[in-house]
């Protein structure tokens, strides 16, 4: 078959669904977002000041209690912030899963319309057309190419909505980028709090050991209240960090899916336009009729600047088609091949979507599991914050640094 050129041009479409995001264990969540040395030393200073201050207080005084309250509320703001975002980033993969009404519906419609034009579906195109199968009535081939003219406005409309569907996907990706930037920020602050909590743990432990000899009662109080709460909060912070990291990766997955889908949409449009152009050439070669597909051509020229790579691909393809159609003794098969390309593209998209849906489902399941788990300690953090109240909170607030 003289179709190798078109075939090879189409071979490179490979839509790879990204792998599902695995659950991130809490122990591994820390350290993924770097905290620079300056911030780290500032946090350490903060902890040192706090611990010295705490140890100086009488264990039974309300002042000691206030400082312990500050520990229980430690990182509560950061956790709440990150949790608020984690509730939102769960929506996005879910929405991505049932987004079959936009691009998906357009692709289905395109396939239906293209199938109607498929030369394979029209049986033998040679010979005269016969009314009721008996009376000769014009040429079969001519009426076949006429059907292009009647469906061109429909195809142009579908291609246009595919274009706007693609824009939606791009917009989605832009929103994901913004969300990821916000999440990165939130993770940076969580990480700071984790550094702070871990330093606090270390310092309190040292202090308690030091006090064991001189003031065992105080050492006991520090271990039982302050240190206990610090460890509890460290665990909470680590768990929230794990959930947030997972959400961050899940957003990346949605983004990659969208990128692949955009590729698919681009390719579907390109192959469709290529098939129509082939039809124009073939029609000229076979029936010497000039098939005028103005709307398709117009569509192609207006979008050519925007989808540059597509435009280039089209140009080289069209040249090849011209050559083949002119040289080949069986131009209808060239046309058949062009249609096959469209089907291949659409099949690739369908397979991709199926696999991507699987990855997405796994990701959403693990993520909602983690989010569900994290709800428990978020409630605990809120409770602690309410107990601590505004009185203790603002003076000894243990918060991440801005910037």
């Amino acid at each position, binding site marked *: 078959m003289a179709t190798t050129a078109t075939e090879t041009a189409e071979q490179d479409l490979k839509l790879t669904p990204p792998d599902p995001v695995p659950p991130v264990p809490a122990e591994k969540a820390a350290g993924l977002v770097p905290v620079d040395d300056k911030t780290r030393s500032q946090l350490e200073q903060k902890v040192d000041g706090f611990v010295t201050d705490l140890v100086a207080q009488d264990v039974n005084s309300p002042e000691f209690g206030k400082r312990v309250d500050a520990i229980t509320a430690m990182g509560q703001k950061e956790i709440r912030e990150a949790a608020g975002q984690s509730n939102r980033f769960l929506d996005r993969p879910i929405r991505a899963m049932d987004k079959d009404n936009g691009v998906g519906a357009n692709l289905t419609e395109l396939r239906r319309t293209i199938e109607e034009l498929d030369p394979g579906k029209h049986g033998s195109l040679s010979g005269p057309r016969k009314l009721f199968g008996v009376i000769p009535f014009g040429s079969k081939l001519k009426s076949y190419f006429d059907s292009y003219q009647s469906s061109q406005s429909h195809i142009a409309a579908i291609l246009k909505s595919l274009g706007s569907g693609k824009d939606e996907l*791009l917009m989605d*990706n*832009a929103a994901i980028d*913004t969300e990821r*930037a916000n999440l990165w920020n939130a993770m940076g602050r969580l990480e700071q709090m984790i550094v702070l909590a871990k330093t606090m743990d270390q310092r309190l432990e040292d202090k308690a050991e030091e006090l064991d000899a001189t003031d065992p009662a105080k050492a006991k109080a520090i271990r039982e209240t302050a240190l206990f709460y610090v460890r509890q909060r460290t665990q909470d912070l680590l768990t929230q960090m794990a959930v947030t990291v997972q959400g961050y990766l899940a957003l990346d997955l949605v983004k990659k899916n969208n990128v692949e889908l955009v590729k698919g949409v681009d390719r579907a449009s390109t192959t469709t336009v290529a098939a129509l152009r082939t039809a124009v050439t073939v029609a000229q070669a076979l029936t010497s009729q000039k098939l005028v597909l103005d709307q398709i051509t117009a569509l192609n020229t207006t979008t050519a600047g925007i989808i540059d790579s597509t435009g280039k691909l089209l140009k080289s393809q069209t040249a090849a088609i011209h050559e083949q159609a002119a040289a080949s003794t069986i131009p209808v098969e060239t046309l058949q091949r062009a249609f096959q390309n469209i089907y291949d593209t659409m099949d690739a998209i369908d397979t991709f979507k199926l696999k991507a849906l699987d990855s997405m489902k796994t990701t959403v399941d693990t993520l909602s599991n983690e989010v569900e788990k994290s709800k428990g300690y978020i409630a605990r953090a809120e409770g602690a914050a309410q107990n601590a109240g*505004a009185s203790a909170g*603002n003076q000894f607030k243990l918060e991440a640094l801005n910037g």
Partner: protein
Amino acid sequence: MTSEVDEQIARSTELLNRTSERYRSLGQRRRAAQGETIVKRLGRIAIADIAILIAATVIGWFVPLGIGGAMLVMLLLVVATLGLAVFPAAAPEIKPETFHQTPLRILPLKTEQWLDRQRATMPAQAMRQVDGIEQRLETLGPQLAGLDENTPAAGEIRKLLADNLPGLVESYARVPAPLRTVERNGKTPDQQLADGLAVIDREIAQMTEQLASGDLDLLATRGRYLQIKYQGDDTIEN
């Protein structure tokens, strides 16, 4: 060569400029509000007087008014002018109890007006804080225009502006003046007021930030979209 005195003068001038700028906005608004009520009053007087004159003319077409009638018209004009100049009295005092019925849109404005009247009873430090809160409320006001009354965010704002802020100021006002500077449990009431106001100030700032975050995100998204679509992806990551 600049001496220490020069530096001090420069610093003081800078401080004066800064503070006067802050007061100017409040003063301007107060003056503007006054100007507005005067214009309104004058308008009402003009409408009443014109109505009386038209009525007199119409009656004059059918029944001759005579000297007595003319005098009566004059008297009516004087009474209407004076009456409308005095009544209705200046805007009624704002009561925080009514804040719950105030639409959220104008709640910051009402709270601000109310707070402005309470300023006089407060210590100097609290006055400065109140100025800050008033400025924040001014920013918050327009942000609430599109906010649905039933969202949790709206509830939080209403609670802060209609309950917590007036509650704090009123309970401070109820403390007898001589006791306000006396320390109790480690803090004077003056300090407690200042602490409370600081918390409220921070909360309002945070609300403004939170309300704006959606718009900020949208702006960032739009910018990124343009980048992805027209410049290709991967030019800038994050």
